[in-house]
């Protein structure tokens, strides 16, 4: 009994010492790891926007929000000094012809659509490519106005995939009101 207790105490003390050592190393490496992860996210998000290069990553703090429903993730780029939200990026999906079409849509603090990209799809090859060539004419528009856009003229075969893309904008227009406090 006594031997077991001593062994337990030995292990416990080793665990505490090693835990403290790891906490110390983590104290130094965690901010660097976070900054690296933010930089990767920033670069990915930055590719969506056309006028993003004039601001440095250090100006922003990226806050990631898990959501439920079709808009499943939101990335808030907040100004580090003022804490104000400068951009919000939404990861959104809608049902296409054979699969979900996932888009990333960027909106600024005034709820203006600043850019978008199709992240993934698995619709019929040879048909779905058409959606990459379409200009949805959403950039510069108020995000809540996109609800008026019902359809883009296209070949019939690609209409379902296109419709899914437009639906993505619709989902974001509903979400943006909640996040940025606008009125529909």
């Amino acid at each position: 009994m006594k031997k077991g207790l001593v062994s337990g105490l030995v292990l416990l003390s080793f665990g505490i010492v090693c835990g403290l050592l790891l906490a110390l190393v983590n104290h130094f490496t965690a901010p660097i790891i976070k900054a690296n992860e933010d930089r990767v996210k920033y670069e990915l998000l930055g590719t969506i926007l056309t006028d993003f290069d004039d601001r440095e990553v250090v100006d922003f703090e990226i806050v990631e929000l898990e959501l439920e429903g079709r808009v499943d993730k939101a990335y808030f780029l907040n100004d580090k000094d003022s804490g104000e939200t400068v951009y919000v990026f939404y990861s959104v999906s809608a049902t296409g012809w054979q699969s979900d079409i996932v888009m990333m849509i960027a909106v600024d603090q005034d709820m203006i659509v600043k850019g978008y990209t199709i992240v993934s799809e698995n619709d019929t090859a040879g048909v779905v490519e058409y959606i990459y060539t379409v200009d949805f004419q959403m950039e510069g528009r108020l995000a809540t106005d996109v609800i008026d856009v019902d359809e883009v003229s296209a070949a019939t075969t690609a209409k379902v995939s296109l419709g899914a893309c437009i639906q993505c904008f619709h989902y974001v227009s509903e979400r943006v009101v909640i996040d940025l406090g606008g009125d529909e």
Partner: protein
Amino acid sequence: MNQKENFFKGFMKENPLFVSVLGMCPSLAVTTKVENAIGMGIAVFFVLTLSNFIISLLMSSKRLRELIKPVRIPVYIIVIASLVTIVEMVMHAYLEPLYQSLGVFIPLIVVNCIILGRAEAFASQNKPLDSAVDGMGMALGFTMALLIISLFREILGTGTITIWGSLAIDLGFIFDFLKITPINMFVKPVGAFLSFAFILATITAIKIHRDNKKTAEVSKQ
């Protein structure tokens, strides 16, 4: 055994990979690029040298030895796991591409037989300095083995040698000259086993040849 012999035994005589055949799983998995072999080698060097030193230091005190002895394996694991986690955190912070490339095989160093094997077989029974030297030699021998396998696989599989980051040597001209394409199979798991088998067979053949030569010389005298 002097310090020189202690250091160099890990290179060939007791090479952990080619002689003891320890730590094969991560070794075969990461040797798709020379860069990965170097990164894994550095990580193992740090962990093996320090774990050998710390364990030997703990076991050199008679009182502490008596306390640790019944739970020595869990204690070794705590020490090794802490060192591996430190390597992992530092690599994640400062060597992100390498960290991504080595992936799950960095945390798996904890269960690498070479580390635990040296702790139990050598560090727990020898002085701290000797144990650290043994750790360095074994780690360098392991790195050398990884480099040989990765060179073999990368050259044959992709026709390049990726030394570090964008620093790479393109050997495509040799393949162009021979009018063949790189054999992609060598960067896949099956290629790993085949490469290891080829290298092991070559080493064994050299060893047998050497032994035969020695025997012949002795019988002549």
